[in-house]
């Protein structure tokens, strides 16, 4: 299963922190920092995975011994997935690809600022791909359709509520 999805920028600032296992609030950022330290040391030529034993953190031990980190580096952002032994490394690389593609299509040329200003959307898209640590959907188009459906739905309800208000005002 997937334990955590992290988006961190080149300077170590977290842009999205999502855990699929219970973890205390104060322990989240130190863990993210520790992971960033390792990731940022690695050159782009190196492979995209490393083992849990590279990082000494008590929370990681709680999740079990067999932990892998799979990350990709896009421009200013690191996308890091923390998974256990049941996930395939290469599969995860492709999953990151899918997630980034969906973001890219939704925001039309995604950049770091989009992630800051629309953090709720970033979460929403991620929730379409992964839920409870499991892969739900791997087709970017399907993901986008869902999000658009939701957006439309929200707009509709907004319109309806406006109409209601207008009606109320008329009455």
């Amino acid at each position, binding site marked *: *299963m997937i334990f955590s999805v992290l988006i961190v920028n080149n300077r170590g*600032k*977290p*842009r*999205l*922190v*999502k*855990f*699929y296992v*219970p*973890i*205390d*609030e*104060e322990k989240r*950022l130190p863990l993210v920092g520790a992971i960033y330290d390792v990731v940022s040391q*690695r*050159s782009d*030529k*190196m*492979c*995209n*995975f*490393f*083992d849990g034993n*590279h990082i000494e953190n008590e929370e990681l031990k709680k999740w079990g011994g067999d932990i892998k980190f799979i990350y990709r580096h896009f421009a200013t952002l690191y996308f890091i997935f923390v998974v256990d032994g*049941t996930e*395939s*490394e*290469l*599969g995860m*690389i*492709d*999953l990151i*690809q899918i997630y980034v593609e969906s973001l890219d299509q939704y925001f039309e040329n995604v950049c770091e600022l989009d992630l*800051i*200003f629309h*953090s*709720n959307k970033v*979460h*929403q898209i991620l*929730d379409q791909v992964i*839920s*409870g*640590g*499991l*892969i*739900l*959907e*791997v*087709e970017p*188009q*399907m993901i986008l359709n*869902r999000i658009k*459906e*939701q957006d439309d*739905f*929200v707009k509709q*309800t*907004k319109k309806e*509520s406006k109409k209601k208000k207008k009606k109320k005002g008329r009455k």
Partner: protein
Amino acid sequence: MTKEFEKLIREIGDCKSKLDEDRLIEKQIIILKKFTKKKKIKPKQQSELVLRLLFCQLLGHDVSFAHILAINSSQESNLFYKFIGYLAASIFISTNEDLQLLMINSIQKDLKSDKTLAISIALTTITKIITVDMIPAVLSNVLILLKHQEPLIRKKALAVMYTFLKQSPESILKYQKDFELMLDDKDISVTGVALDLFLFISKKKPKTIKHLVVSFVEILNLIISGKLPLEYDYREIHAPWIQIKLLKILSYLGQDDPNTSREIYQVVQLVLKQSEIGFINGVFAGHAIMHECIKTITKLYPSTKLLELASIAAGRFVTSYSNNLKYLGITALTDLVLVYPEATNKHQIIIVDCLEDSDETLKRRTIELLFRITNKSNISFIVEKMLSYLKTQKDKKYKTSLVSRILKLAEEHGTNIKWYILTINKILQIFGDLVTHDIVYNIMKLISEGSLLEDEEDEEDEEDEEDEENGKKGSQKTKYGGNTALKIFSVDIYSEIISLKRPYPNILYQISLWVVGEYSYLCSNFTTEETMINIVDLINAFYISDESRAMAITALTKMVSHSGKYLEQIDTIIQKYSTSRNTDIRQRCFEMKGILKLPNIIDKILPLDSINADIEIDPNLGFLNEFVENSLKNGCKKYISKEERIKMENELQLGMNENKKKSKELRFEAYQPNNTQQSSTWRIPQQNIYEQEINKNQITNTIELEDSISLKVSGISQRWTENGYSGFKENEPKNIENQTEKMEEKDTSDDLNQYNNLGDNNNNNNDDDDDDDDDNNDNLNNNNLNNQNFNHKNEKILEVKSFRFNRIGSKGPMLEEGQKTNEKILNNDNNNNTTTGQQKPPKTEEELKREKTVNALFNGAGSVRTSRKKSKSQRINFNSKHITKNTIEKNLEKTENLINLGSEKN
């Protein structure tokens, strides 16, 4: 999003330091706190606030004061606000139980909602905030949702079930039938999520789902046949993630189960074949499937055909240019090699090349693989590569573990002992400070016993263990065992190392010094004198530790005693280091001085090549039985075990407490004389040593208490004793003894006894050397005769250890026949020794025990040249040797005094 929030984000983006950023956020938090105190907030404003909170939390600030806002927001009817509320709640409250309970209500409501979106959001939230106690509250609702018409809801419901399953497997496993139905879902992606549940079960309880193997195989067949709708393809590969999951499940189910494995073989082969298409296209997902196939094949019950295919596939990974694929290839091979050792044969060079890659992760993996594929034919090559890798390694912890593993590897697979020694020297030269001492003892053992070399030519194919056995047998045949050629070889190497005078790690010097000290007479490239000069230089060098320095001094001692050659420089060394701050060095210097003074027995103390001479240790100290019996006959008390003694001590303490009470009151009775008696030299015959100790305690205690009452006797020499006046002409010995007393205040009586005994024995040795000295002293001669008799009986042991055993052996006969005389001397001694006031009691078992330990230490010292079994405690023995020998020296002086005294008496 309001302008305010946007401004905040921009400002933070412009911040140049963490401090500025923190200041801004703190300001923001103050504003947010004001808002939370307001009673009525518009939903729009509320959701905006929640977003701001999320932002602050992301930057690592505590926003727990406003968690309630998120919950309020989640209860809004507007889905947009609801979504934000749920999102914030799921991020904020993953471990805070009180807030979780608050959420439950709105979640339950939303699960029953008719809007798919609301259900979907609620389900997502459950996976994040659920705890074991909350499962029953929502379980029934989720079970209904498993049959929802929307595939998305079914998937999310399954994901929720998965989190339940992880939290309390027992209560959820009864719904396994429901999950099985999900396998046949119309939408294959729902099946995919259901597979995650079965993956979990197959890991924990593979036996409960063995019957499903057929359906798993069917699904897999269906996927690779390409009959699925196109939307499930990822870059022309059919549902790769589901394939991977299926392969994972099958590998767990087929593990150690030949029957199930046979059902799986065919489909795995097909999948592997198809994944090759993906490999050609260069899509990661295709590689992933192939990698998974290799992993599955290694886990299944072995089938040679599949293993061959797997090794070919692994070869594709390893030979790839991408580091990712190389890494996975190496990982796969690491597992595969265990089942199918031939897998790496073709790729050895590529694997070794991976060590020169810049990627640290890849290198570490490669090292793991290399450890597994090392054998006799490639060991020297691989170790060389590993060492060159080690030199580049910076992580000290990893380095240390790697060094010890390489050493182990060399030991396991090394066929040539010369190579082994050279390799270890190489490792020690570079990484000496990372090596444990065990390896040193191993090498010493190897050199002294010499195992592999002799048999190498005839029995190369035999296993190491057998070789070692042969070595042992060989060593039994010759006098002390070992292999002269090997010893010459190693002495040559190590004397060269010493002659190089480079700041190598101490551990290397320690081995060198030991080997050279032990076998210097075999050395072919240096003369003994040259080596001795080298060692002298080394002792003076700044870069070696005191421990090595001490070993160097011992090595010199050995060399002098073996070769009989002596250098002037040694004198200066002794002089210089006799005053060293390090007690070990000092002791060794004194010891060397002492030993060199005894040319006749020098070769008995340090015999040639005696490391393998098994020293027989009699743990029961049988040779003392006679003595014990005699002592008992003479009225000694029996040995009291420790428990009993503790009991007695406790009782005594009680008594002392009473004494304390008494001392505070007025005393009407006459003072009891026993305290003063104790402190004087009154002789109470047959008093147990233990009682004496107790009395001593009493004395010190009572003296403390009654300081003012009783006479102060300590420090005043008492001339009148039971035996009459004895105060004349005794100044000399008394002084000396007083000195020693001061040194060993704690155990005066015991040590004194020991001194006396040791003194006597040393006397005997002296007698052997030059009888003239002791002609006057009949008593001692008498003892000596007895000793000699005794010695004859024990010829077996005496060869090497006569020096030490004499000492112990002498006690028996001494008490048997010469007891009276002995006691006289002792009495004399005690009489003089008024301040201590402890008289010599007959030997008790307590003391025998003491002897035993001393003896054991001596035996250990005999094996300065590592006794085989005790190699670990060798260092301690090493030191103990000094202590005992040092005391002997002191005793020599002391006995001379005693002799003088005795002669005067006579």
